[in-house]
């Protein structure tokens, strides 16, 4: 763990701790220095006391292990690890994959059909507007077709009330939602709500 040239007398506290930790063990290259170190220790009682305290501290740690979990704890722990480890997930065979795909598609279709009924609740009921509901209140200038990718066309006259045609006014109390594809461009409040 350390080079021989790191070892000098008197040894530093860190080196004394390393000796107490057995870091000199199994190091043939450190054996001459170890003997020198031990000779120094023998002449210094305060260092011997220190080494004894260091070893006692280590012994305390070793003699007071944490409580060992039960087998049930370990089993739960391993099951959670195995569950989280995706490599242990068995790959699905082709038949299962096809069935899964069909089931997913069916679920999407069902959602598409059911969602308009349950997805958003109508907030208010509206009737489709009739021609009499349209009133153009402001006509201050000629209208221009503003087309972003072209120069303006010739001036166009503003529309008037009579120009508005309702092509499908068969359902006077047709219920529409505030949001959604079927929302009409022109609408009016249902009669009873006016």
């Amino acid at each position, binding site marked *: 763990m350390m080079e021989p040239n790191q070892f000098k007398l008197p040894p530093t*506290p860190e*080196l004394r701790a390393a000796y107490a930790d057995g870091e000199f063990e199994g190091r043939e290259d450190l054996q001459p220095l170890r003997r020198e170190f031990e000779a120094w220790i023998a002449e210094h009682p305060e260092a011997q006391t220190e080494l004894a305290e260091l070893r006692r501290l280590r012994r305390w740690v070793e*003699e*007071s292990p*944490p*409580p060992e979990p039960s087998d049930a704890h370990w089993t739960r722990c391993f099951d959670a*690890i195995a569950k989280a480890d995706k*490599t*242990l997930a*068995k790959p699905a065979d082709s038949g299962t994959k096809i069935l899964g795909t069909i089931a997913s598609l069916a679920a999407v279709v069902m959602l598409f059909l059911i969602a308009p009924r349950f997805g958003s609740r109508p907030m208010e009921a509206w009737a489709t507007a009739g021609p009499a509901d349209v009133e153009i209140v402001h006509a201050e200038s000629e209208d221009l077709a503003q087309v972003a990718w072209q120069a303006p066309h010739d001036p166009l006259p503003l529309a008037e009330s009579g120009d508005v045609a309702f092509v499908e006014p068969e359902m006077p109390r047709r219920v529409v939602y505030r949001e959604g594809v079927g929302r009409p461009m022109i609408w009016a409040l249902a009669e009873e709500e006016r």
Partner: protein
Amino acid sequence: MTAVLAIPDAELLQRASAGERDSLEELFVRHRSLAYRVAYRLLGHEQDALDAVQEAFVKALTHLPTFEGRSSFKTWLLRVVSNAALDLGRQRGRRETMSMDALGQRRREEMEPSVWVEPDREMQREDLRRELQQALDGLPPAQRQTFVLHVDAELSYREVADSLGISIGTVMSRLFYARQKLRAILASWTRR
């Protein structure tokens, strides 16, 4: 399971990453106690320690490609465990060492009696463990981690240095300061 007992960790790892559940289980059984001991010392709480072990194994398996095999799996795992434990401790806030006792008899009944010892000695050991845990809790995380990896996990200075990516000099320095504080805190125990 008997077939995998003599297999080295590296091979078990390969097998586990190929989806072999038995190999993963063998790896888990081999290293769980040491991993738990490290996590417990860093957290002072049984369930938190188990959570840290679980998280560490999952992380280790997830990041298996980053394990370059320069150190042993044990050393690498203990690094992941100790980091996971410190993270968990920071997230949850370290609980009182006594919290396990407060959980009541149910938890105690789940614990396996490891070795029968005389009640007096067991009480003494419990007191010592509590004192030691409080003393460890008082250390800065880096010193605590280094001390626990060396003393509890029995890693050499070199292994601790490799595991934490620090120099041996830093290991020695951290251990020195950790011990100084522990000796001071545990001095009262010495006088008993």
